[in-house]
């Protein structure tokens, strides 16, 4: 269990993290979302005990990070932002150093090392010095040291930042692989990541917690949730189509979204697809496509973090 209560951190006049509380249970992969400078990294530094909170507390597996830091740190695997390492060490000696500090010994040490080296595909770069590694490999070495002791809590600060699409895919697969029975917190500003790996998402901006929901729940807040796009064939007056769609009880708004397409936005809590299908049949519209839309996370993210209403920034 990871419990964060009323966590606050000030740097002089700046309040980087402002009264944030949440808890994470084993099995959850929590996406920590926010624009740059939202307080994501500061929160993670406090969870891992690197930074002391101005007020509030963090408990990791029952250990308070402030008063019982050593026990708390044993439960955590942490990938700091930018995956720092010791530049002059080889990958092998670096991982062995981490294994020693983590107290791994004998066959356990060997099997754990072999396991993470295989999982992260580091076999080919073991004798290489860390500063000569590519960004992707450096990030993988950082992940390897984080999961080396098989910790119950994993804190990963932007684990896929700067990786190419293939590497991103691999890292996400790795996170899903190890996520069983673990508490994982990932910070990111990449929204597709939330869809790809997270079971829950928290949105922060300006140091405040603004939303705490499942990725689906967040998507449902989008005006695109339940919307239907009609692509029409043949000669048709889009204004008429819009007017007819607006006549339906389930449709809150209808907009022209292409040269021959109209999108009908659902009234909250309704599913207008069947009604629209029936309407199209009644009117004799030639449909090239009738496409149900899903909620758009980027739109929800923008509206939550900027405080503007949905759709206001999409022109």
């Amino acid at each position, binding site marked *: 269990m990871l419990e964060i209560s009323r966590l606050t951190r000030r740097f002089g006049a700046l309040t980087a993290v402002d009264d944030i509380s949440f808890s994470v249970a084993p099995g959850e992969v929590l996406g920590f979302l926010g624009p740059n400078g939202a307080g994501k990294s500061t929160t993670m530094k406090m969870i891992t005990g690197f930074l002391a909170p101005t007020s509030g507390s963090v408990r990791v597996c029952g250990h308070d990070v402030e008063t019982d830091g050593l026990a708390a740190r044993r439960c955590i695997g*942490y990938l700091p932002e930018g995956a720092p390492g010791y530049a002059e060490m080889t990958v092998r000696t670096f991982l062995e150093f981490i294994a020693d500090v983590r107290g791994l010994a004998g066959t356990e040490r060997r099997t754990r090392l072999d396991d993470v080296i295989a999982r992260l595909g580091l076999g080919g770069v073991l004798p290489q010095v860390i500063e000569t590694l590519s960004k992707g490999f450096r990030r993988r070495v950082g992940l390897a040291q984080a999961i080396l002791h098989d910790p119950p809590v994993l804190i990963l600060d932007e684990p896929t930042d700067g990786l190419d699409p293939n590497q991103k895919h691999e890292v996400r697969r790795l996170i899903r692989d190890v996520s069983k029975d673990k508490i994982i917190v990932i910070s990111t500003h990449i929204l597709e990541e939330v869809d790809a790996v997270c079971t829950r998402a928290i949105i922060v901006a300006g140091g405040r917690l603004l939303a705490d929901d499942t990725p689906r729940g967040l998507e449902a807040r989008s005006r695109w949730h339940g919307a239907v796009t009609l692509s029409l064939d043949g000669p048709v007056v889009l204004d008429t189509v819009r007017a007819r769609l607006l006549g339906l009880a389930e449709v809150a708004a209808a907009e022209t979204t292409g040269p021959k397409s109209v999108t009908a936005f659902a009234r909250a809590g309704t599913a207008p697809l069947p009604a629209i299908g029936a309407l199209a049949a009644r009117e004799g519209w030639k449909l090239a496509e009738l496409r149900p839309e899903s909620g758009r996370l980027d739109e929800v993210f923008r509206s939550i973090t900027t405080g503007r209403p949905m759709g206001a920034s999409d022109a």
Partner: protein
Amino acid sequence: MRNVAIIFRRELASYFATPLALVFIVIFLVLAGAFAFYLGGFYERSQADLAPFFNFHPWLYLFLIPALAMRLWAEERKSGSIELLMTLPVTPWQAVLGKFLAAWCVAGLALALTFPIWITVNYLGEPDNGAILAAYLGSVLMAGGFLAIGSCLSAATRNQVVAFILTAVVCFAFLLAGFPLVQSLVTGWAPQALVDAVASLSFLTHFSAISKGVIDLRDLVFFASLIAAWLAATVIVLDMKKAD
């Protein structure tokens, strides 16, 4: 203790993974030899002792030790690895001690490699080997004192050059405490007790006492407590500005 040993080993290996340790040792040996033979008049004095050799150690350390110490924490800060180190299950004390001991070990190794001069003086005459051993001990302790100061000042900044300069200046002040240059800063306005306290911090006084072969417990306690105090200060500085 286990963690101290692990951090010590990592740090020592990284001194030798870069040219730093090698450069330090070579320069130290060359300069220590050159000073003893040319400036110290090792032969001309026609005395079977190593005074001209040891007399230059404080001045050698003054600019070589800060170079050894400057990277201890400033580099961890610069590269961000401090965040990794401080979130591992090690206490700040273990990290500070392990790193300090590694740097001290490099300095000690450089000093140990000056043994040919000890062989030379034994070949040429019959020196007081007890006194020479005492002087070596004093030299090691003084290097430790300089390194502890460097450790603390390195923790205070992420810039190694700043760490070097600060360390050199503070070491210089400690070296010359009790001498007019430093002493004139406190005499006149400070109470006599403080003036005496500053004078008693002099590295030169304590070192020259030991290097004459007189191992006084007070000199040993001086260096040991000085090292402990500066390492404690390192822990405090790290704690205060870990994330800066």
